[in-house]
């Protein structure tokens, strides 16, 4: 398989995943989009091994390694902030009224504002996912430039 065909395949998979993602949201089927994502990654992995005109050498490995390391170094801080926030909400001690009275039947002592809703967690997860992708692409571009990826030689 040629390099350009591989990139085309990645584009097609990305579009297909977007369509499946949309369908899953419309029909509230989480499993569908999750399994489609895993299948997409597996297809890309096996297609990548069949690419013949893409040379992986120590410089490209170093670019990938450095970009991944820097992404991890920044991302774990963001992820820790998100996790600490949600864990704090999870283990938060409910507020009791100043004058204690036994709860009425069916009354909740925890107000709904104490626990973050799944929707907010979803938005935060989406933000983290986007941040991770942008960080990786950004660092990859930076290190590719640093290690001479786009130098135009006289030859």
């Amino acid at each position, binding site marked *: 398989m040629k390099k350009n065909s591989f990139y085309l395949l990645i584009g097609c998979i990305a579009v297909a995943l977007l369509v499946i993602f949309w369908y899953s949201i419309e029909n509230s089927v989480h499993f569908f989009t999750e399994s489609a994502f895993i299948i997409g990654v597996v297809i890309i992995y096996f297609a990548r091994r069949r690419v013949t005109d893409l*040379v992986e*050498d*120590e*410089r*490209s490995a*170093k670019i990938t390694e450095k970009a991944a390391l820097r992404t991890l170094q920044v991302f774990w801080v963001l992820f820790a902030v998100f996790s600490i926030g949600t864990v704090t909400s999870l283990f938060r001690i409910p507020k009791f009224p100043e004058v204690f009275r036994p709860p009425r039947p069916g009354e909740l002592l925890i107000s709904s504002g104490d626990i973050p809703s799944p929707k907010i967690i979803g938005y935060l997860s989406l933000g983290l996912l986007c941040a991770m992708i942008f960080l990786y692409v950004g660092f990859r571009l930076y290190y590719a430039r*640093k*290690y*001479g*990826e786009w*130098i135009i*030689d006289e*030859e």
Partner: protein
Amino acid sequence: MKNKIKVFRAIGGLRQEDLANEVGVSRQTIVAIETGKYDPSLDLAFKIAHYFNVPIEKIFTYET
């Protein structure tokens, strides 16, 4: 690290593409080494020196 790959290539009448194929890297890596953007690993440096049949210090020199 400075290197004289370009000089040795010129002597041998070798293209970047040819050297890259001989030592198993991409042409862009040879370009990056020649322009000083990337310092090769010891393994690659020895491969290049071995290809030109000269001691490694003839091609690569360390400068602080």
